């Protein structure tokens, strides 16, 4: 990827929380710990991981709902890590977010027209032109213009999610973060919304950061994929590489665990145990207690993300000693 096409560049992003469970029990939770990735214009980066992996915290810290505690975020080459006031508002116009549950993210007392109109006011469009633009945006997300007068309670889940997408598009963002945006939808509706997101990307050149626990959705949507485990990226590469040639034992297990109609009846690689508590992760590689390939080194030192001979980035001692050429260097953007 060339430097010129880079839209969003995230380096060493960290979000640490202080968690107090009692007067004497206070610990540091590294929800996101040294995450580095970039997204090119018009491309989609998928982030996958289980609950507690920090994937949603990455999203929330990018739009600064949660303030990052470390690292830098560059959008279009300028540092947007710690913006405030007017400049933060201006920045959020360039980076929009679509949440999992459109029941929560749309104000139940605002009509569709007002919900989208609010976003248009933010972008500086004069009031009289709102109706026409709302109609245009609804058309773009394949909803009838008559829906503008309805309230969220009168819409189906799929329609609500389309309204959320229309509202995100209203400010002409450069990038939209979709945090489990299709997870709550039925499969037949999910396919419609995924197609719609692809069409919008094709027409407007918007980039997506697509966060999902569902690997088959990511395989369809993403150009690049990052797999997260307990706050860190453990594997990073193009969608093709990660899905057809996964290297990290966790990625392998994650892919193998997807119940698919085409692979039914096959014996699958099984992962025992559960993801650890991010407030109290195991020593060394946080995956080692569940890892079928763990060696002594994994219990002692935490592997950094290194590049393999094939160009994929993996944080695993075993894989890097087998394929790697550069296990100590952080992957450079």
């Amino acid at each position: 990827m060339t430097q010129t096409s880079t839209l969003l560049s995230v380096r060493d992003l960290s979000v640490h929380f202080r968690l107090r469970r009692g007067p004497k029990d206070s610990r540091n939770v590294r929800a996101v710990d040294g995450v580095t990735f970039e997204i090119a214009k018009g491309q989609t980066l998928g982030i996958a991981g289980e609950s507690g992996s920090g994937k949603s915290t990455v999203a929330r810290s990018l739009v600064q709902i949660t303030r990052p505690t470390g690292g830098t975020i560059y959008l279009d080459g300028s540092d947007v890590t710690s913006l405030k006031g007017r400049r933060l508002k201006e920045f959020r116009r360039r980076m929009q977010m679509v949440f999992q549950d459109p029941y929560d993210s749309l104000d139940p007392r605002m009509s569709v027209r007002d919900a989208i109109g609010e976003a248009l006011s933010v972008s500086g469009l004069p009031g009289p032109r709102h109706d026409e633009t709302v109609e245009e945006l609804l058309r773009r997300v394949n909803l009838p213009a008559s829906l503008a007068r309805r309230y969220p309670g009168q819409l189906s889940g799929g329609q609500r999610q389309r309204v959320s997408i229309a509202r995100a598009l209203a400010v002409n963002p450069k990038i939209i973060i979709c945090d489990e945006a299709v997870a709550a939808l039925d499969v037949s509706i999910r396919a419609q919304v995924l197609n719609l997101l692809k069409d919008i990307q094709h027409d407007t050149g918007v980039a997506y950061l697509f966060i999902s626990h569902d690997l088959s959705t990511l395989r369809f949507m993403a150009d690049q994929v990052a797999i997260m485990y307990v706050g860190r990226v453990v594997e990073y590469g193009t969608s093709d590489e990660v899905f057809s040639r996964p290297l990290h034992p966790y990625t392998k297990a994650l892919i193998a665990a997807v119940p698919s109609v085409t692979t039914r009846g096959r014996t699958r690689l099984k992962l025992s145990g559960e993801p650890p508590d991010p407030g109290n992760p195991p020593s060394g590689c946080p995956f080692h207690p569940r890892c079928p390939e763990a060696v002594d080194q994994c219990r002692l030192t935490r592997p950094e993300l290194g590049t393999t001979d094939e160009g994929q980035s993996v944080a695993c001692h075993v894989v890097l000693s087998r394929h790697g050429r550069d296990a100590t260097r952080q992957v450079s953007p």
Partner: protein
Amino acid sequence: MSLVEPMPETDAVVVVDSLSVTFPSDEGVAEVVRGVSFSVGKGQRIGLVGESGSGKSLTARAIMQLIPSPGSVSAGEIRIAGNSAALSTANAPQWRGTTVAMITQDPLSSLNPLVRIGVQITEMLRHHLNYTRTQARARAVELLSAVGIPNPPRTLRQFPSVLSGGMRQRVALAIAISCNPSLLIADEPTTALDVTIQAQVLDLLEEMSATHHSAVLLISHDLGVVANFCDEILVMYAGRIVESGPTDQLIEDPQHPYTTALLTSVPSMTEALPERLVSIAGSPPVGGVAVKGCAFAPRCALAQPRCFEDEPALRQLDVSARRVACHAAGNATWPSRFQGPS
């Protein structure tokens, strides 16, 4: 097989016969489950697949006699081992939990949050099997270790809220199988779980149902989950079964356009991906709205004028064990594209 020829009822654990469930609505009554019939044989694993509002969960709740008010079973019958009287609300404390047991999507809502896990397991054993306190406790420890709980004595003293979702589902499963039910209904048991935990829980469900000789009715929106677990699949749409058959046949050669669409709208993990997913236009009808003709016709790529007029009956296809409710299925002369109602 069981779904075509009504099996001798002595072999069936549960027979659902022309079940309908209705709710009162603004327009009178809404029929949200319409004439559903199937049977579950001993040790069989049957999957019930459908989208939200298809009536799959209500079918399960009807078997448990747990239709939430103001809904009710308006027609049909559910027979357990040939005996319909055995399954009434009046004597539910006798059969619920022993003959038929159920686990739900989120055990946090089915487990009592204020009662220690130990009490919730042992009350089943003491009530149904007349175990003494000591016997019940010993059995509870056995059950918890069988479902892979790391430290059973400690877990017995804990409250549900301190356990992870996967662990809670293990506890719910331990309670459900504690009295060796002949049928275990699992309603979206893994939907709230991470994918690696989902695989563990499904394995456990398989193992437990095998050791306790329980048949399983697995309800899921995820055809992948069902195809990996079940011998037979029932596909529901708008309150009806629209297709059923042995898993391999149904997956490899779906006959109903809705089944086909369900299969193609999920991106594959292994095969080359299309630029666009095959999606079904529109959305499913809102539960219980009476539709003329086939409920799927407005979204169906194969629909003909006839489909908007008469509702196709669920019929047996050829000599196979398949049932399908579609005018086009098996009809070689059916036009391949919609011509518009003329």
